[in-house]
């Protein structure tokens, strides 16, 4: 048995390496699931890694219309995404950095990334990217209150303002006492996850019609390393939301180091499969119906909060 300090360092290194390396795999699993439903072989599981590496090695072409804001979009997107990973607890262990109100900091980091992604889209002066930008900003206005209310419900249920404590070892007893509320919150967070990560039924990352896209159309003019950063950032964002939701849904007690990691990895991959199933079995909603879908998330988390005041 190695000394405790070495074990701590090892655990931190493993935690960090996992967070940096794992996210694109979730995209790969979603892709495989969709391919399986469509009866195709589909791209290899590791395809997102190949894509990111390929893009990072390419040259760049920048649009004549654009300014520094266009380049700031991907840079700020990846920087905030990397910083959010430090705030997310895994396997019931505290995150690297935990403090009261950290979930708010996380939400506002994502908002900072959104600000510059949308601004970069508008910087191209294209009507298509303008459309995507407007939709992203509009739907975020509904997703944001749902997210804050949902996390607020977790905060009240756990009597703590830190994500690490909300999703810590006490989660099991929270389920026992406030199960109904947590179910509603989890449903709301799942809708927010789909919306924030441009998944069906809100957005279709694989559509071929720019008119109907949200996120993909915003990054239409980005290429090369910038697009690589955007893709990697999107994978990390999906991972962050999935890590919160997977832990909330599967509050395994602390049962040892390796078993804990296995459960975390397994639950994340299972969530990726669920997302793939949703993408395969549902059609994208009409754009005018998306607000109703997101308002449903707001209402779900509102009921989740109200139930805690019985």
């Amino acid at each position: 048995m190695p000394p405790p300090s070495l074990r701590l360092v090892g655990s931190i290194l493993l935690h960090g390496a996992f967070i940096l390396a794992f996210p694109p795999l979730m995209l790969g699993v979603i892709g495989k699931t969709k391919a399986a439903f469509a009866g195709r072989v589909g791209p290899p599981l590791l395809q997102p890694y190949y894509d990111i590496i390929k893009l990072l090695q390419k040259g760049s072409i920048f649009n004549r219309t654009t300014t520094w804001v266009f380049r700031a979009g991907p840079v700020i997107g990846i920087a905030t995404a990397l910083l959010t990973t430090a705030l997310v607890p895994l396997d019931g262990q505290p995150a690297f950095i935990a403090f009261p109100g950290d979930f708010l900091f996380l939400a506002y980091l994502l908002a900072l990334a959104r600000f510059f992604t949308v601004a970069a889209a508008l910087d191209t002066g294209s009507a298509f990217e303008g459309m995507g930008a407007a939709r992203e900003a509009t739907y975020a206005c509904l997703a944001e209150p749902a997210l804050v209310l949902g996390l607020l419900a977790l905060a009240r249920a756990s009597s703590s303002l830190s994500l690490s404590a909300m999703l810590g070892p006490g989660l099991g007893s929270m389920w026992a006492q406030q199960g109904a509320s947590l179910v509603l919150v989890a449903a709301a967070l799942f809708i927010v996850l789909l919306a924030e990560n441009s998944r069906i039924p809100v957005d279709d990352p694989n559509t071929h019609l720019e008119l109907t896209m949200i996120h993909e159309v915003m990054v239409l003019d980005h290429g090369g390393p910038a697009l690589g950063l955007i893709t990697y950032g999107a994978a990390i964002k999906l991972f962050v939301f999935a890590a919160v939701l997977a832990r909330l849904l599967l509050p395994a007690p602390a049962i040892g180091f390796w078993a804990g990691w296995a459960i975390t990895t397994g639950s994340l991959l299972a969530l990726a499969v669920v997302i793939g199933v949703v993408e395969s079995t549902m059609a994208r909603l009409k754009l005018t119906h998306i607000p109703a879908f997101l308002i449903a998330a707001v209402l779900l988390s509102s009921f989740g909060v109200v139930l805690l005041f019985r």
Partner: protein
Amino acid sequence: MVVEPVSLPSPEWFMLCGIVLAGLSGVPGLFVDRMNRFGERSALLLLGTGSLSGVLGAAYALSPTRLRSALVLPGPLAGADLRLSIDAISAMFLIQIFAVSLLGAIYGLGYWSQSEHPESGRKLRLFYGIVTAGMALVVSARNAVAFLWGWEVMALAAFLLITTEDRDSEVRAAGYVYLVATRIGTLCLFAMFALLYRAHGTWDLDGPIAARSGAGTAIFLLGLAGFGLKAGLIPLHVWLPGAHANAPSHVSALMSGVLIKIGIYGLVRLTALTAAPPLWWGVVLLALGVASGVLGVAFAIGQHDLKRLLAYHSVENIGIICMGIGLALIARALGRPELAVLGLAGALLHVWNHGLFKALLFLAAGSVLHTAGTRDIDQLGGLAKAMPRTALAFVIGAVAICGLPPLNGFISELFIYLGLFRLTGIDAGGVSIGAAFAAAGLALIGALALACFVKALGATFLGQPRSLAARRAREAPGSMLAPMAVLALACAFIGIGSPLVAPVLDRAARCWAPEFATTLAPVTSLAPLLIVTALCGVLVLALLALATWLVARTRPTSRGVAEPRIGTWDCGYAAPSPRMQYTSSSFAQGLVSLYGWALRPKVHRPSLGGPFAGEASFSSHVPDVVLDRLLVPAARTTGRGLGWFRWLQRGSVHAYLIYILATLVWLMLWQRGR
């Protein structure tokens, strides 16, 4: 003059010196001819010296060892002396008043120079100094007489500033609405102070005011109306968009950044003087704050006049500040010192923050207006290329006002969020559930503000120019850029160095809730400021490192092959034109229709018919619902009703003499009858 206690250079003297110098700053310019530049220079020198003196006085008042002192100046009437004193709350407002006023005056050198505006420059500078002096007098007043003096000087000088360009009928209309609003507000304040005098028998503002009585309720409601009108709380905001849009931009910056906060100061002072404010005061302020915040930003999204858009954001931010004050009042009623600290620190820090970033945004908007000659964002676009520094200033202001890290808006919103979260966590009945939804409201406000500012940034500075005026835009001169740079740096400083500001907030909170004076925990122990500072620092470093990497990665190669630059990809269409860009109206369309129930947008939709439809145009705009749909029709109907009394007004002196005689006789009879 009487000084008590005798300590000659007390902060009040510095402040008085600042008030006098600022108030007189425009006077020397009146004695030279129109084209002489002496006026601007002397005004800036006097205002600069005065501001320095005022800021020094305020900083001195904030020093922890200082004893309380007061300054009594003889007033014009017996028993109506002017009593002045500075505590931590006053000092916070004073620093902001003098700093923003000075920066605005420097900006004014380039923006409203005497050579460009020989007819109005001297008037503008005269009243600019007077409004600064008036505001400083209000926040240091310790009796009703001094308060109302300062209030009236400020309110009337602001009217004369708004109507600087009084040849324009739109400006006159905005000024008139402001004048009516401020008169009504002052009337409420006169009634409030009269009630205070009746209840406590003194004009001094030393408290404590008894809150739990009929008089206490009336005092609160009158104060809320009077101060709320000045601050621009919905639905009392009607004067604000027009006035801010039509005033010269550095005046808009001063008014939006500082002057409307004097209304907030009034609310803070009134509640500070109150012993044991009842719970419903806080609930009312919290609810009004959420309503103002959400509706203010929703109205802002519908605007395509850049300065009107910014003005509606003032309504939003006043809402956020009121949420903080409401939270702190609730905390006092519940006996929770930690919530009171978070609420009040959030409110007061947001007062500072909003003063900084809103002034920055108005100055940047002023530079755009100065060079392009239009405030209509749908006529602008692509200005970031011609005015990169102004664009950077606008980006910093926009990120700050959206409450995003690593800038200052995030810190004050974090305080209010944390307070609301903690209130949700305790079992205080309906108030706790309300706090949860108020927090969701704050999240909604943040997301809407982000949408609105990305829209304003994108339509104004990004993409391609939509008009000839926008294509000919030039960068602003150094005298206009320097104040923006100072404001932007201040936004970054408070955002990253928030623990340095915390002691000031602690002192102000102790001043505000004296019953908690011994139990108040420092704000750094309640909010994770050090960690946030560290994380923001990491974020900034990561951004710099990644940006350097990306720039190095995309630099022209050593073989001298520059990176290829091409036009925008428009899905195969070969020649996209600037007119095809998404405009601010198209960007906002989704949100405006989501909030259609409140905004009532006016849409002119063309009907296209036949196989060869003719030319058609589409337009939409969002009028102010309260002003244009409620007050103006109501005033018109009332005016028509009152027209019946016009037969009394014959224009004949004889008739009027008869009225006077009849009134006199009636009064004498009435007096006899009693």
